C-alpha cells in the first residue's frame, strides 16, 4: 500500500519542531508499524537525510519503550503497543499523523522520542520493597487468596509506556502510579512500607508536574495492557488512609 505520513520532526528539546510530510510506497500489510518506519528511515538515510528518531526495544509488546501517538490515539487505532500494531490496521492511501507523547513531564528529546525518566523517579520514590522478604517461597506458603494475587498481577502488567499520560486530557500519571502502588499494596510483602509508599509516590507524581485525574477513563481505554481505573480508586484509598493514619506529620 501507499501512504502519506505526517511525522513530528524536532531537532532537540530546544527546537520548536513541526509536522513534516513523507510519501511511502510498497508497504506490506503484514509489516509492523515500526517496520514501516524502518523502511522510511532506510530511504531517508540513503538520501542523506536525518532518519526519524523513535523509541523501541523489545518489539514484542513487553518492554514499554515504543511510544507513538498515531492518528490521534496513543499506540494507534488498536489497543496494543505500537510495536504490535500492524499495517493491516490501515488502508491504501491513508494519511497517518505520528506525534510524540505530549506532556510537560515527558519533554521531547528528538522527533518522536520523549524523556520518561519522570516515571522512573516515581518508582524511585517508593515503588519497591526494601525489607527482606526471604528467598523464593514454596507454593502456597504465603497466605494470600488467588483473587488478590490476580489483582496484583493485573496491576503488575503495566509496562510503563506512558500511553495513559498521552491519552489523558490532563496528562495525568494516575493510572501508572496507581498500578505501581497497587501491585505492592495488595501483596503481603508490600505491607511494611505500604503507607510511606503511597504518600511518597503520590507526592513525586505531583512534583513531576503531571495533571490531576478527572476520571474520564481515557487511560484505561487506551492502555495496551488493560490496566483498570479501579487501581486509581485503590490508590486514592491507599493515599487517604496513609495520610490519615501514618506517623508522617
Amino acid at each position: 500500500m501507499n501512504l502519506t505520513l505526517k511525522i513530528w520532526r524536532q531537532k532537540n528539546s530546544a527546537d520548536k519542531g513541526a509536522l513534516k510530510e513523507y510519501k511511502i510506497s510498497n508497504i506490506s500489510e503484514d509489516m509492523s508499524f515500526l517496520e514501516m518506519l524502518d523502511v522510511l528511515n532506510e530511504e531517508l538515510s540513503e538520501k542523506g537525510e536525518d532518519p526519524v528518531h523513535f523509541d523501541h526495544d523489545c518489539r514484542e509488546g513487553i518492554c514499554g519503550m515504543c511510544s507513538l501517538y498515531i492518528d490521534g490515539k496513543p499506540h494507534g487505532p488498536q489497543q496494543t503497543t505500537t510495536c504490535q500494531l500492524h499495517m493491516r490496521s490501515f488502508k491504501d492511501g491513508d494519511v497517518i499523523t505520528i506525534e510524540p507523547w505530549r506532556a510537560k513531564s515527558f519533554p521531547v528529546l528528538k522527533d518522536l522520542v520523549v524523556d520518561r525518566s519522570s516515571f522512573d523517579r516515581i518508582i524511585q520514590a517508593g515503588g519497591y520493597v526494601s525489607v527482606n522478604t526471604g528467598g523464593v517461597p514454596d507454593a502456597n506458603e504465603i497466605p494470600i487468596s488467588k483473587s488478590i494475587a490476580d489483582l496484583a498481577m493485573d496491576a503488575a502488567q503495566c509496562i510503563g509506556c506512558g500511553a495513559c499520560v498521552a491519552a489523558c486530557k490532563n496528562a495525568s500519571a494516575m493510572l501508572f502510579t496507581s498500578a505501581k502502588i497497587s501491585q505492592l499494596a495488595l501483596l503481603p510483602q508490600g505491607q511494611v512500607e505500604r503507607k510511606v509508599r503511597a504518600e511518597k509516590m503520590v507526592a513525586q507524581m505531583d512534583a513531576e508536574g503531571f495533571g490531576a485525574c478527572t476520571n474520564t477513563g481515557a487511560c484505561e481505554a487506551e492502555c495496551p495492557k488493560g490496566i483498570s481505573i479501579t487501581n486509581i480508586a485503590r490508590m486514592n484509598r491507599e493515599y487517604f488512609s496513609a495520610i490519615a493514619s501514618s506517623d508522617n506529620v
Partner: protein
Amino acid sequence: MSWVSKTLSSTLGQKVLMALTGLFLILFLVVHLAGNLQLLFPDGGESFNKYAANMANNPLIRVVSIGNFAFILIHVIYSIILTKRNKQSRPVAYAVSKSSTNSAWASRNMGILGTIILIFLLVHLKGFYYEVKFGSVPMASYDGEEYKDVFAIVANAYSNILYVAFYVVSMGFLAFHLSHGFASAFQTLGLNHVKYSPLIRKVGLGFSILIPALFALIPLVMFFQNQ
C-alpha cells in the same frame, strides 16, 4: 508544611474536596428541588411563601445555607486550581486527537460546564436570593399573618421567555455536569467496587436526567400558566 496543608496542595487532596463538595451540592439540589416544586401547588403561592418564610427563619437552615455558599466557593476555587494545573500539564497540544473514542464529552469538559453553571448561579442568586433578602418584596397575608410574596417575584421572573429559556438551557448543562460528576465523585473517594459501581453509574445517569428536568419543568409550567 503540615500534613494537612500538604494534603490540600496534593492533586488527590484537592480532588477529594471537589468530590465532597460536589456530593454535598448534589444533596442540596434534591432539597432545593423539593422546595421549588411547591411553586406548582395550585394555591396561589401560599405553601411556597410559607415554606420560604420557614426557611428564612430556621437557624439550622441559615447555618446550612452558609455552608452551602462555602462549599460552592471551595468547589469553584479548586476547580480553577485543578483545571489550570491540568491545562499546564500539556503545554503542546496534539495536532490530531481522537479523544471522543476513549472518553465521554462531559468528562472532558467539566470546567466549561462548571463555568456555565457558575454564571447561571450568579444570575439566579441576583434574581431571587438577593432580591428577596435585600430588595423590596410585595407582601401577602394568610390567616392574618404577613409573608414575603416570594412566589410573586418568581412568577414575575418566569413570565419572561428569555429568563425561562436561560433557566432551561442551564439545567441542560447541569445535567451534563452531573452525568459525569455523580459517579466520578465516588471514584475519586476510592469507592469503586464490582458490586456497587455499576449501580452508582446507573443512579448517577438517572439523577442527572431527572433532577435538572424537574428543575426546568417549573419555569416552563409557570410561564404557560401565565399566558
